[in-house]
């Protein structure tokens, strides 16, 4: 820092005799802003770096706290396994077709598949990659997510191609008196 022994007349309304002054050494070319910001450039840089490291450390702490909060939230999550519920008449879903429904809550899209051979399968429609809705392509024997070309096996729900690496959430179904019932989410 550059400082002088004499107060500078232009350093402020009161003379600001305590502040270091640039341009008080007799040089007439000193810019006017030096009067109001009487710090040398190297001094400014040192202060800025220290402040910046403090801000970065605060940001680091905030990110760590956010991660802890996310971990706590994740550990408190409970999967809604659903209650047994009537879905649809079996006669309304012939072999080779599907039926869309909501399970376990009205915000959870699901799909019931009536496979060739009479087997029934039900899955959550949420892709396990980023949550897009999957749909059935019986002619290609696959459940397909159009967002990122994810492909699932319609029998097991396993991910077979694309970005998803986890199977679709499977819903246990049963037929009682000609009616398809959802019995609950199958635990992984």
């Amino acid at each position, binding site marked *: 820092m550059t400082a002088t022994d004499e107060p500078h007349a232009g350093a402020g309304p009161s003379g600001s005799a305590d502040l270091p002054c640039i341009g008080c050494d007799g040089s007439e070319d000193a810019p006017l802003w030096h009067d109001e910001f009487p710090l040398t450039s*190297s001094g400014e840089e*040192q202060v800025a*770096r220290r402040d910046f490291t403090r801000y970065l450390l605060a940001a680091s702490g905030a990110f*760590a706290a956010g*991660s*802890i909060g*996310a*971990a706590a939230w994740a550990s408190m*999550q409970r999967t809604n396994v659903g209650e047994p519920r009537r879905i649809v008449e079996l006669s309304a879903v012939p072999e080779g077709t599907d039926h869309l429904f909501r399970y376990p809550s009205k915000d959870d899209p699901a799909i019931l598949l009536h496979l060739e051979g009479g087997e029934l399968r039900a899955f959550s429609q949420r892709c396990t990659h980023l949550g897009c809705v999957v749909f059935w392509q019986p002619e290609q024997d696959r459940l397909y997510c159009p967002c990122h070309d994810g492909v699932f096996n319609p029998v097991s729900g396993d991910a077979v191609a694309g970005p998803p690496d986890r199977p679709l959430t499977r819903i246990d179904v049963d037929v009682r008196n000609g009616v398809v019932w959802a019995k609950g989410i199958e635990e992984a």
Partner: protein
Amino acid sequence: MKTSIRAERRRSGGLLVYLILLVSLQTFLLVVALEGIAAHEPDLARNAAILSVVLFASAAGLRWFVRHD
């Protein structure tokens, strides 16, 4: 005297770069933890949080060390 100032500036510059890299990594770890929520994988979120806290502690320790050197 000049050498000492230069050394101090080099050291603080190095610390600055390290902290920027560290905060960038912590941004990624926060995203991983949030992904753990979305994917119902608490273990993933917990491990990301632990690593993030370790990085924060090491950064705080390093800054303390440099300031008191």
